[in-house]
């Protein structure tokens, strides 16, 4: 099922992100998804060697999850593949019945666990969108025709609504829309006012936007993100809230409460929510209940 179909039907779309393991045994991941996510989310978004840490591939994981009856979103970054490999993998995804893509530039290789690797970046998020659109039109990036019916996807991209430079984000968002982006996922949001202001400006593009949620696990994690993660500022009062009752925070209750509050405040301004649980998939059902989704 294409996500764009759900947006067209006016559904509030819920997706969750999962990271493949470092190894090829995925029974545990499949069990978790079947227990906590199946029936609660519209699609599962599978990361592509997230944070440049080498793991099992996104494409194969998507295929296994599709076989379990789940809808998947295949994440594809430009870090590890040149345009030949990117195009080939997109065609492979079409063959395997994957209909949703999330197209990203990708983190630099030096941030991961194989920092000696060659960073590729032959294309970037914008030209990658353009590349998929060309494939959908029946030709490759160099203009050579494809055989048979061309593939068709719901093409997604990311945007960072709470970043320091909103104007720069809007320009990039517009470039992505022009290159073919049909839906957006945002970086994690902790400042609903900023998100709402951003959406006031972004709605001119007429493309659905899914609010990004990372459940805060501890005050330490919040501070770490403030120092190191682009486009994220966890306000001081939230850090205080996480500090106040350590047991409650450790049990995940505080983080779930904060996240549900953010969703409720932003819900009317966006078309869906994308949850990046970072291993806390088990908390997603509680979060959705509390956010009345």
């Amino acid at each position: 099922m294409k996500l764009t179909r759900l947006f067209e039907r006016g559904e509030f779309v819920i997706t969750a992100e999962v990271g493949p393991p470092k190894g090829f045994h995925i029974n545990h991941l499949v069990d978790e998804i079947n227990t906590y996510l199946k029936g609660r989310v519209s699609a599962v978004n599978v990361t592509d060697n997230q944070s440049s840490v080498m793991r099992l591939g996104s494409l194969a994981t998507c295929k296994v999850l599709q076989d379990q009856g789940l809808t998947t979103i295949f994440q594809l970054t430009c870090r590890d593949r040149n345009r030949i490999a990117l195009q080939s993998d997109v065609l492979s995804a079409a063959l395997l019945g994957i209909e949703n893509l999330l197209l990203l530039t990708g983190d630099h290789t030096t941030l991961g666990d194989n920092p000696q690797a060659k960073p590729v970046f032959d294309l970037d998020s914008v030209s990658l969108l353009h590349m998929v659109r060309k494939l959908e039109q029946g030709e490759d990036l160099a203009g050579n025709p494809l055989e048979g019916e061309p593939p068709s996807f719901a093409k997604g991209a990311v945007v960072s609504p709470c970043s320091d430079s909103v104007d720069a984000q809007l320009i990039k968002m517009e470039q992505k829309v022009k290159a073919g982006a049909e839906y957006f996922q945002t970086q994690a949001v902790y400042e609903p006012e900023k998100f709402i202001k951003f959406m006031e400006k972004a709605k001119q593009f007429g493309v659905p936007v899914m609010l990004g949620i990372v459940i805060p696990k501890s005050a330490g994690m919040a501070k770490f993100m403030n120092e190191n993660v682009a486009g994220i500022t966890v306000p001081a009062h939230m850090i205080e809230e996480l500090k106040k009752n350590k047991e409650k925070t450790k049990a995940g209750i505080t983080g779930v409460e904060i996240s549900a509050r953010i969703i409720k405040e932003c819900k009317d301004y966006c078309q869906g929510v994308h949850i990046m649980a970072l291993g806390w998939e088990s908390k997603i059902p509680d979060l959705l209940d509390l956010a009345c989704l």
Partner: protein
Amino acid sequence: MLITQLKSKEAIADLIKGKTFIINCHGCKEVYFPEYEADKIQKELSADGDIIENITRDYICSTDNLHVQLKKFMDKIQEADTILVFSCGVGVQTLARFLEDKRVYSGCDTYPLPGIQGVTPMEFDCGHCGECYLNYTGGICPITACSKSLVNGQCGGSKKGKCEVDKDMECGWERIYRKLEKLKKLNTLNYPVKIRNYQLPFDELPKDV
């Protein structure tokens, strides 16, 4: 060694907005510069556009030198709306920094020529990408100033203006945004998708010639 190649006449004509001051650099012997063709195009452009001055200098990549060389032209330069530079990418970047409030455009693309490496000391870096992007990026080279050499805007990794790869390094795209903001030219970034071409012109030549 480098080769500078002229952009197409249409592309160059597009850059001429208002009063235009042309600077050619015939400085170093590391760069092959198409003097004859440049002269021809500039003559044609003078016939149609408002070229208020056309000068030829050497080593404009050296900031100190540039000061002295441009001194007596500064009034005219201030008066100009556009500074059009015919040099390698380094020369254009040096001028774009030196004339920070001006629209500095490049009339050339820079390619590498395999063989002897140049020895001219330079403050700026040109990656000889073959399709100079400086006209879109406020004179800051995205190939060498961005850790991923991105040509369609910033990646999602910049934090507090620094690059995700190195917290001591300014994000090249942040610098580009700030420069264009200052020039009130942020909308130049709304260009159609750019895709790098890694094929060099001489790759297409038969190898045994």
